[in-house]
């Protein structure tokens, strides 16, 4: 009897313990398929009704030498029966598929934590590559942990004895055996993964069946052999009514942009050049062809944004996706988009820098580049997404702003949001606002005035090529107010510089009042932006449990800043700002509001842990 849809109830002998939060970390060689099983665990956990957050952590090299420390790939998932915000500070369970994975991760496992290792991988060569002189499974160094030493490779081979596959092919299924074990431990359903395997290997049915067998094998082995003293139940988290899916940040950006274009009735054009960690935005949108989405893999970053500007000139919503080094290359074209005042959406999925930096690691250090990284006075609205699901809303709002104000808009995400996942309540198209777009189609007898502005938004007139009698020229040279003709007049130039600044500043008129989580005034306000939200929320929960009065404001709008922000900052005795850079937003807020913002900088390529923020607050408040 194999578990097909739901795990069968454990044997009576198997005690069931209920817990409300679990953190599992899978770690292995980058060729071991760790990201695959991490994602499968995520899907199954979502379907089980838990709230969850994930943190994939993989090397920049596609295949670092097998078995080495730089080649270790990790995936951490946290899931719970309550609302959670982070993938967890420390794991409850560490699954180490080889010695290198053990070596690089064991320091994070607290005493008493569960440690599952694949003993077959602990042979001389691998131990040497990981820098172990003695086998840690035998020298007592793991005595503080609950060690489950399992010959996962051997067991997988046994489970696949009947299959006409090479040993190498069989061994590649061992990740699914390990996944089956973890499914058993926390009573996850198998059906989502079984379906995924079916689809993934549909061209090679024998591999599909082998992986399914390995998955079921891992599950059944734990059941039959009672490997774990008890299994765990994590009750579903309370979710708002609705239909849900798991979503990663880059998918949400792609969907948010596409949804906004649909709501505006405009075609969307994504010009992009592959760059980690933004590439999957291009991948996703390339598969939206039946929705009329046009994607263009350009020859370089500059062509990517330039083609998008051309598409906007032609009446589409042009967009481009990149990461920090690519944004640097796009600077001049962004200035052009400011000058010609066309709608444009730019996604910057930030990574560690400068230069090539840490391509697969996360950082928030492009903020000042986003705000100021262009020649002259070139204001651009900047929005930051705070969770994978929030990437949808942020991309949607960015497109709204781009069209309403006729301006390029920059959206900041980061590597952590890009590949991190969370359950996302899928909005209904009918609940999304329509986005009005007003093309000028008639000159009404007079000459067409491309730089005549809407009195409320200061957006200029938009007429697209193909419209009779509205022929006009735009370009990077300074424009005469109203007519858009080239002008070198000094007074006109200053007027236009101020008009462009005022237009962007006015976007703040559409923002809702800034939400404050906690008291409206008091001893401490934590200000955050972007992906630090989860860690800050987790810290707030703990600080409040300890009876501390702390408030939190999380900013999506970084330019323009909300109009009520200055007044809010002044209501608190102290303002703490954690960010994954050397204090860039703190620098902006100090300059803008003359508030003595305390910067808490972390630039390690890794997101903040809630415990770090808790510790910093306790240090501050005494």
């Amino acid at each position: 009897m194999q578990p097909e849809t739901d795990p069968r109830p454990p044997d009576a002998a198997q005690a069931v313990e209920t817990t409300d939060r679990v953190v599992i970390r899978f770690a292995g060689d980058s060729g071991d398929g760790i990201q695959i099983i991490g994602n499968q665990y995520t899907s199954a956990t979502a379907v089980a009704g838990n709230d969850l957050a994930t943190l994939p952590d993989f090397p920049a090299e596609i295949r670092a030498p097998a078995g080495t420390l730089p080649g270790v790939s990790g995936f951490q998932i946290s899931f719970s029966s309550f609302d959670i915000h982070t993938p967890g500070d420390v794991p409850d369970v560490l699954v180490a598929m080889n010695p290198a994975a053990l070596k690089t991760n064991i320091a994070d496992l607290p005493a008493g934590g569960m440690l599952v290792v694949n003993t077959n991988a602990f042979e001389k060569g691998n131990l040497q590559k990981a820098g172990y002189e003695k086998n840690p499974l035998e020298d007592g160094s793991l005595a503080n942990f609950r060690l489950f030493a399992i010959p996962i490779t051997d067991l997988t081979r046994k489970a696949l004895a009947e299959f006409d596959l090479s040993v190498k092919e069989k061994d590649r299924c061992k990740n699914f055996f390990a996944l089956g074990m973890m499914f058993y431990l926390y009573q996850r359903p198998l059906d989502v993964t079984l379906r995924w395997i079916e689809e993934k290997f549909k061209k090679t049915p024998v591999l599909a069946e082998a992986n399914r067998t390995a998955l079921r094998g891992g599950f059944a082995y734990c059941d039959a052999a009672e490997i774990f003293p008890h299994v765990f139940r994590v009750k579903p988290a309370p979710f708002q009514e609705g239909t849900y899916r798991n979503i990663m940040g880059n998918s949400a950006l792609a969907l948010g942009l596409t949804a906004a274009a649909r709501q505006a009735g405009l075609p969307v054009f994504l010009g992009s050049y592959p760059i980690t960690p933004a590439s999957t935005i291009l991948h996703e949108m390339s598969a939206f062809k039946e929705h009329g989405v046009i994607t263009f893999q350009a020859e370089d970053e500059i062509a990517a944004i330039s083609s998008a500007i051309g598409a906007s000139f032609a009446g589409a919503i042009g967009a481009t996706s990149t990461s920090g080094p690519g944004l640097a290359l796009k600077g001049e074209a962004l200035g052009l988009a400011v000058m010609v005042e066309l709608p444009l959406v730019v996604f910057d999925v930030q990574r560690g820098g400068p230069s090539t930096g840490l391509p697969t690691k996360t950082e928030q250090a492009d903020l000042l580049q986003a705000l100021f990284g262009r020649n002259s006075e070139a204001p651009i609205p900047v929005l930051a997404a705070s969770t994978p699901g929030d990437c949808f809303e942020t991309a949607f709002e960015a497109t709204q702003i781009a069209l309403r104000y006729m301006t390029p808009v920059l959206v900041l995400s980061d590597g952590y949001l890009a590949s991190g996942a969370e359950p996302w309540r899928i909005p209904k198209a009918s609940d999304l606002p329509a986005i009005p777009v007003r093309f000028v189609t008639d000159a009404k007898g007079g000459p067409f005035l491309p730089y005549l502005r809407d009195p409320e938004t200061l957006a200029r007139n938009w007429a697209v090529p193909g419209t009779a009698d509205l022929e006009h020229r735009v370009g990077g040279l300074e424009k005469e107010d109203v007519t858009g003709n080239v002008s070198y007049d000094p007074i006109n130039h200053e007027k236009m510089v101020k008009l462009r600044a005022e237009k962007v500043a006015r976007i703040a008129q559409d923002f809702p009042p800034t939400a404050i989580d906690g008291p409206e005034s008091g001893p401490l306000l934590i200000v955050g932006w972007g992906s630090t939200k989860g860690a800050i929320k987790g810290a707030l929960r703990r600080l409040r449990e300890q009876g501390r009065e702390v408030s939190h404001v999380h900013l999506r709008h970084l330019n323009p800043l909300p109009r009520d922000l200055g007044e809010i900052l002044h209501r608190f005795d102290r303002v703490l700002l954690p960010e994954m850079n050397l204090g860039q937003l703190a620098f902006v807020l100090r300059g803008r509001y003359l508030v003595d913002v305390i910067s808490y900088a972390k630039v390690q390529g890794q997101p903040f842990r809630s415990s770090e923020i808790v510790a910093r607050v306790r240090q501050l408040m005494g």
Partner: protein
Amino acid sequence: MPTTPVKAEPAVNAALTKKDFQSDQDVRWCPGCGDYAILNSVQGLFPKLGIPREKFVIVSGIGCSSRFPYYMNTYGFHSIHGRAPAIATGVKVMRPDLHVWVMTGDGDALSIGGNHLIHALRRNVGLKIVMFNNRIYGLTKGQYSPTSEVGKRTPSTPHGSVDHPFNPISLALGADATFVARSVDTYREHLTDVLEQAARHPGSAFVEIYQNCNIFNDHAFSYMTEKEIRDDNQVVLRPGKPLVFGAKMDRGIRRTAGGRGLEVVALGNGVAESDLLAHDAARDNPAFAFELSRMEPPAFPTPIGVFRSAPRESLESGIWAQVERAKAKAGAQPSLDALLTKAETWTVS
């Protein structure tokens, strides 16, 4: 639906004249600049194409030639240095019904924008790329360009340039351009004819125009354009016709005996026109056109005319065909809800 391209419309506005294409802006090139002649040719050609005025888009980069859009009463985009082919690609892909021209120079197209040029050509985007080659940087006051000859003395090369120049025609052919031609600013009739062929070519068309900068590089092309000597120094490429040239049309281009190269021969004394190389721009293999492009003075007359005209599917056509296939496969354009829920979903009630 706005998500499908507007199909090309039949010409309706046959009554357009040159004046309809002149904008109200003062033309600000130096007096005597070759750009005036090119502007004249283009303004004369466009009304003859039978295309409504609003369907023209002229995109340019930076440089003297790139002021062109301001002087044409069409849609226009004066962009940033070198990027015009990339911007124009976005326009053409989204709106295949528009007639998109890129006006550029040797610095804009071959130096800072070289990458975009070759990729637009290899993709065969339906752009008409007109490159004004004056072999100098004009707008920045006279530095040498990627087409300047070795030894050229300019403000940035006081000892003479040591850079080997590009041959723009060879470059375009190397990038697999489907239409490649050359003309001269002052050859009104020839230039207009070449531009008209470019306009009617369905994919990328690259036209190099020898253009005289009378301020910084005067007489750059006099060796072949001066009335008294030009027929001896240029050969006009005519489809299907042997390569004959000379004031008396008494010389021609022949393949050498071993077949490895080309040579100039005098007609007569046993050499007939039938012994000469006949021009064929339609060959699929660009090697023949490339060979012609290598004919340079002093050993050879300079070829002008269409080197290559061999259509293949354009980028925009390929892109929209995929969209149409995807829509057909889906039955109709799926709803936004269908897109958002295209994943493993679960419901909480």
